[in-house]
């Protein structure tokens, strides 16, 4: 496990921390949602972080459960099999999602055709969906 997140994290710090927690266990992730666009220079005013898990969604959730047990995260809702919503330090909202139920290759298609690398500081390089990827996801 990685160290706990900052006590009152900014949205960026919360994103960086949870991505690092998932990458620490080698889960492939994609940053998506409006925050992904904001990181690419748009100004959509995102207030949460959306993270797509590329494989073993249940395994990723079990990793995050361990952080929840430690008090770093609080699960605040779920759509079984597709989305789990957490608050990092009880404050910053993060949705962790899988798209395998939509299409088994959707994650790889987005990573290959509609994402771009971002430097996420301590979390290292992370791929984020582009504008086109953003509109593929909810359409």
């Amino acid at each position, binding site marked *: 496990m990685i160290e706990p997140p900052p006590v009152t994290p900014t949205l960026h710090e919360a994103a960086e921390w949870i991505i690092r927690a998932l990458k620490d266990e080698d889960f492939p992730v994609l940053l998506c949602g*409006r925050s992904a*666009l904001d990181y690419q220079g*748009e*100004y*959509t005013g995102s207030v949460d972080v959306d993270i797509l898990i590329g494989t073993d969604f249940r395994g990723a959730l079990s990793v995050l459960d361990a952080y929840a047990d430690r008090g770093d995260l609080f699960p605040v*809702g779920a*759509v079984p099999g*597709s*989305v789990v*919503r957490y608050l990092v330090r009880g404050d910053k909202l993060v*949705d962790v*999602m899988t*798209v395998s*139920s*939509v*299409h088994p290759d*959707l994650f790889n*298609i*987005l990573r290959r*055709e*509609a994402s771009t690398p971002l430097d996420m500081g301590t979390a290292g390089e992370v791929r984020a969906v582009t*504008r*086109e*990827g*953003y*509109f*593929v*996801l*909810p*359409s």
Partner: protein
Amino acid sequence: MIGRKGFAREKEDPMLKVREAWALVGARTDRGKVERILSKLGIENGLDRALERGQ
């Protein structure tokens, strides 16, 4: 897709966020590429359908 399967599915209008985002960044978005990717997923005119409500 995820909007209809995730938290947004409970909303009366789960595609509202799509239209709001389109108003913000749609002019700089390659619409053809979105439709090409959706087509690979077996979804035809998905973006059109997401955007049409409220027009």
